[in-house]
């Protein structure tokens, strides 16, 4: 029992709560930067917190068609996102001595799958076409993302011969082979955009039935449940950003003091956010059936990275 619930477990829980608290800020920051890039003033950077607060205070409207799946799904989605936040090598990569050996890449990825599975089921539960369409498209994009994300992360996993996240974070992407790093980083960036439902794959700001994917899936939700889903989505995005910064934005931080490492990680996250907002601003949402090609590019880049390694 000691080994499971030891210090590293408490750190993981702490990290999950920290990331959960920070996630809406990151989401707000992305909105703000995006607005500035589009010459708008935009909402304040704490707007997402206000939104969540508002959602939690609102009544829920629930369709009489739905079953218990609909009420269970937000909890599972939220718990899965929080679990992923606990597993991601964030704090633990800064303090290798507390890193648990037992956190695994596939654990992290399959927690996302778990959350998505139940949310997609819930989208079919209310019996509307919008929900089903959103769920179908979400699963479709997930199918395309899965091989690409694995290929991108394999460049790191092959170096450690294992999928242990702490071990992988210790090695990071191959700095000695810049080409492989660039390819893998590009591949993962595409995947990051697709997974966090952003332009050009999906549009987080729209409620137009022809374009929405993730938003369509959760269309029937309201009140606290919607609040949980919005929050969990923000956490998931932050987890992906941290994965990206840890593995694909290498920087020699060995021997640095803890505070310097934290500043470095924050800097990387901000850089990543800037890149995401820039892409959101300069591209248009692509047609759904262009997405396979887009993600095939990611998969090919991942393969190239493995060859170049």
């Amino acid at each position, binding site marked *: 029992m000691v*080994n*499971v*619930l030891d210090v590293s*477990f408490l750190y*993981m829980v702490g990290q*999950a*709560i920290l990331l959960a608290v920070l996630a809406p800020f990151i989401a707000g920051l992305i909105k703000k930067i995006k607005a500035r890039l589009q010459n708008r003033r935009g909402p304040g950077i704490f707007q997402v917190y206000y939104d969540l607060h508002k959602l939690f*205070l609102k*009544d*829920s409207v*629930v*369709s009489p068609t739905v*079953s218990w*799946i609909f009420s269970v799904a937000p*909890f*599972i989605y939220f*718990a*899965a996102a929080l*679990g992923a936040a*606990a597993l991601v090598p964030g704090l633990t990569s800064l303090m290798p001595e507390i890193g648990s*050996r*037992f*956190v*695994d890449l*596939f*654990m992290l990825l*399959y*927690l996302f*799958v778990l959350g998505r*599975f139940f949310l*997609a089921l819930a989208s*079919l*539960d209310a*019996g*509307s*076409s919008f929900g*089903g369409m959103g*769920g*179908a*498209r979400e*699963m*479709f994009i997930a199918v395309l993302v899965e091989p*690409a994300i*694995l*290929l991108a992360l394999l460049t790191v996993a*092959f170096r450690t*011969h*294992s999928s*242990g996240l702490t*071990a992988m974070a210790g090695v990071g992407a191959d700095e000695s082979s810049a080409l492989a790093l660039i390819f893998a980083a590009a591949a993962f960036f595409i995947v990051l955009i697709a997974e966090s439902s952003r332009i050009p794959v999906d549009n987080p700001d729209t409620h137009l039935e022809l374009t929405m994917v993730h938003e369509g899936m959760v*269309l*029937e939700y309201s*009140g*606290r449940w919607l*609040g*949980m889903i919005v929050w969990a989505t923000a956490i998931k995005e932050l987890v992906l950003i941290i994965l990206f910064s840890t593995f694909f934005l290498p920087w020699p931080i060995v021997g640095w003091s803890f505070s310097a490492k934290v500043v470095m990680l924050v800097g990387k996250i901000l850089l990543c956010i800037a890149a995401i907002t820039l892409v959101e601003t300069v591209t248009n949402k692509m047609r759904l*059936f262009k997405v396979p090609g887009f993600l095939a590019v990611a998969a090919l880049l*991942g*393969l190239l990275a*493995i060859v170049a390694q």
Partner: protein
Amino acid sequence: MQFVNIYLSMILLFAVGLSATPLLRHNLKLANIFAHGIATLGSLAAVLCASFIFVEGPQAFSIPVSLPFLEFSVRVDYLAAYFLAIIGIAGAAASIYAFDYGREYFGRRFMVMAELYLTFLLAMILVVTISHIFAFIVVWEVMSVASFLLVGQEYSRPANTKAAYLYLVMTHVGTAFITIAFLLLWKTSGSMDFAALTGWRGDEWTRNAIFICSLIGFGTKAGVIPVHIWLPKAHPAAPTHVSALMSGVMLKTAIYGMCRFYLEFLGTGPVWWGELILLLAIVSAVLGVLYAMMEHDIKSLLAYSSVENIGIILLGIGAGMVFMSRGLSSFAVLAWSAALFHVLNHAIFKSLLFFGAGAVVNATHTRDIEHHGGLIKAMPYTAIFFLAGAAAISALPPLNGFVSEWLIFQSLLILPEALSGVAGKLSAALLISLLGLTSALAAACFVKAFGVVFLAKPRSVSAAEAHEAPCLMLGSMGFLAIMCLGIGFIAPWLRVMLQSILIPFLSAEAVDNMVGAKWYLLGAQSGSAAGGLSLPLLGAVFVVGLVFAMALYRVCGCKNRLSGETWTCGIVPAARMEYTATGFSGPIRRAFGKILRPRTETVINRNISPYSGRRVIFEVHITHVFDELVYQPLNRYIVKLSRFMKEIQTGSVQLYVGYIMVVTIAVLIWSTRW
């Protein structure tokens, strides 16, 4: 107590069941209870036999039979005991299910079905325990024929008889190859006993020939693409408890055969054996799940998903063989145990899913999921059990499917150790990403299956009038659902057990320190850098998340919940507006159009009524590549050949006498020349 006694009493139990059931033919209720009771007891006896082996060590005995070539010799080592346990567990669940399910068949050849079911179960038990070449082929054939007759149980539907005959042909092609493989073994080793074949070392040509023959033979039974075509047709046609056993267990007897050949008889082979199996495996996995995704017949969907899972199992076996040929025995143990683990898991969740499907089909009288819907309200327990199976087969943590898939991922991750160079890395990367694709597709497929069958509003009258399944059917489903959850958590122990199965074959000494035999950790490799999978940790993290979410929900939320109808742009929602299974799989069908080659047919009838507009019938057909490229031309060729033979076979006696005379003269001339 002697092992012989337990084993023979199990056989005796089945023999009593087989001979006494016909006596009860006038009282079907009693016959049902008797036959399936015997089947349950027999399966439990099989589990008992297997546990005896795991406690006391491998056992063997032999009873001479006064027939040429035949000897009733039984040898149950750990490998056989493992498969025996799987047959026992799934068999017991299926038999309990059949108490209630069998009543559907009263008056529809019930007695035949019960007898065949007992035969089928007994034959599977014998297949994994018998250790004599000739006897093995005999019981293998009995198993095939019994299952063929069960597939043809509802022979009034032409599709079923067609499926049954296709199965019969394919399984005999398979048996022919298996027989050739065994005959080659017998010819070069001179022994018909499995134990004598263990240390067999033949020349390269013979070994390769045996490998290919056994691969085709057992591959046909296992449903490996491209020799899978019987599987998705035959499995759905059989009664549900038999479908469950065919998909969950009978396919595994083929895997057992492969284990026997590649671990024991052939041993370490050249690298291309493993590579060939890896190739077949990944093709089976990806195509199997793609076809499952496109399927609307719930039982066919599950059958195609069996093809996928056999592919996943073979990924482990193929990787294991590659490691074996490179002498990396501890890695080989990892890969093989991943495969064997998935064998158990698939037996459990696939039986569970078939049971759920059977309950749904019983309640709605249709297998087409487009006519189901909303069943979660009428059948709440079936729904939750089916959901457990669906989650397990989609490899969702922390269920058992995730654990075995994780082990397969780990074995593929270290594949570059055996296949050096860029090519090795690249192939390992491709295999891993395609396995990821497979499991994502499986998740999509089972979201579709569960969502369309159980959620939203009923899509047909029969679905609206559905009722919950009887309690014994639910009981056996519940038992398997609990196993899906439990096996994930006992995985570290199971892993140690699988090692003890494999170590005798792989002569791996360094294995013991590889697995941390700790209750909370499922290790992959030795070494400090490598991690492991800790399901309790994952569970703890998830539970913390759940508690956090609950607290959030309870403490800082508004508790009012209003009821409001689903928004459908102002019209009253109806089942017709729900997203269909065809719609759900649409994007994937389009993205993988090159492989699936969908053909759509839209019929628009505008003459219905001037007011309501038109009626549109939309149909999608998927092209099954191998059917069209291989089997249909082959079929045409065989028909053509038969036509030619028909010309000769006129039926006239005079002509036949003429043939005989011509042949006689030819033979005479031929013989006088020497």
